């Protein structure tokens, strides 16, 4: 058999005539895949520094329960990580909410306990199960002020607050859309990420126009960059956006 007819067999030494070709193919294949993988990785958005803060340990604070209808705690007795005056969004384990447990305590003083999620200025508390997570506390609930900030037009992205705060990485963007919608179906508090701060905050809890849950039409716009209008109000250090679904527009 001539050199021209050389034939590669895996369990035999490579024919001389094919060694150069095989080496070139191996180098190109491996370096090509590595380069392709690097290019795809570099093209992805930074997932941010959000995470479960297990390093803080279990957090237990007291405050007044409010429903937007998503449950909030206006903290009156805080701790090192969650100071008094802070407004805390509440969620259950996984993609669940704590409305069943929070509704009977609306407007009352309650003690909540759980693990914190934190991403910059955004945080949320994942409550423990049953009354270990939330229970009535002794004492009269102080009056809590809600300050209307008027109607605003904002640009940004509708996310589920829990994944955004650190339950998932990435916790936003198209790659996370299905997960976000499942969280929102589970009535985990939705959060709007504004392109620029509104009255000092770039994160706003989103509700429906009538103060109900996120309207169904909004699910189609989750994880896309959109513009929308709505009434903004301040509850402690948290802004709440009552979105107008008729104004939703996908940005180019």
């Amino acid at each position: 058999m001539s050199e021209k007819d050389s034939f590669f067999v895996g369990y035999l030494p490579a024919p001389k005539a094919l060694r150069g070709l095989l080496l070139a193919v191996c180098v190109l294949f491996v370096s090509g895949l590595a380069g392709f993988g690097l290019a795809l990785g570099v093209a992805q958005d930074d997932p941010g520094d959000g995470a479960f803060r297990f390093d803080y340990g279990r957090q237990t604070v007291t405050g007044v329960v409010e429903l937007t209808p998503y449950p909030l705690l206006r903290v009156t007795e805080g701790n090192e990580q969650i100071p008094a005056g802070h407004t805390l969004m509440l969620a259950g384990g996984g993609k669940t909410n704590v409305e069943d447990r929070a509704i009977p305590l609306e407007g009352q003083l309650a003690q909540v306990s759980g693990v914190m999620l934190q991403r910059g200025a955004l945080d949320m508390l994942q409550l423990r199960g049953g009354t270990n997570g939330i229970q009535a506390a002794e004492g009269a609930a102080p009056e809590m002020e809600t300050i209307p900030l008027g109607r605003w037009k904002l640009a940004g992205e509708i996310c589920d607050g829990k994944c955004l705060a650190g339950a998932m990485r990435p916790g936003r963007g198209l790659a996370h859309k299905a997960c976000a919608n499942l969280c929102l179906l589970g009535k985990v508090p939705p959060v709007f990420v504004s392109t620029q701060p509104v009255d000092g905050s770039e994160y706003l809890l989103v509700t429906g126009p009538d103060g109900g849950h996120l309207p169904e039409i909004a699910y189609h716009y989750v994880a896309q960059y959109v513009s929308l209008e709505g009434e903004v109000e301040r509850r402690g250090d948290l802004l709440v956006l009552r979105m107008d679904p008729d104004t939703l527009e996908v940005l180019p």
Partner: protein
Amino acid sequence: MNQAEAILMGLRIWGSIGAVVAAIFLTIGMDRIDEDAREAYIFRPLLIPGVLVIWPLVLWRWYLYEGGRDQWARRYDPPRRAHFAVGWLLPIGICLIILAGLSQRQTWPADLAPVQLSAPAEVSQ
């Protein structure tokens, strides 16, 4: 009906037809076209998932066998002839899909500032 519901509806219809084809082919058709499969039943449920997916091909092959028009020696000629073209189309297609996805990505509208359209009405407690 939105796009997701339409896709789900299409899959349900496809799978339902596949289930009917599987029921008929695995109980009646197989015995008619493959004498080696006669009186052998245990393996047949294993074929159900495959038939649900490629039931049109199952029907076509069944039709050819029934008519005695199957030319087994030439069965793989079409895919063999297509190997060269498919071998190029597949990687090119993958690259085009990735490039299209990257080019269609939205840009974070960082320059769009919040605009207050109207002042607050009142303060509530």
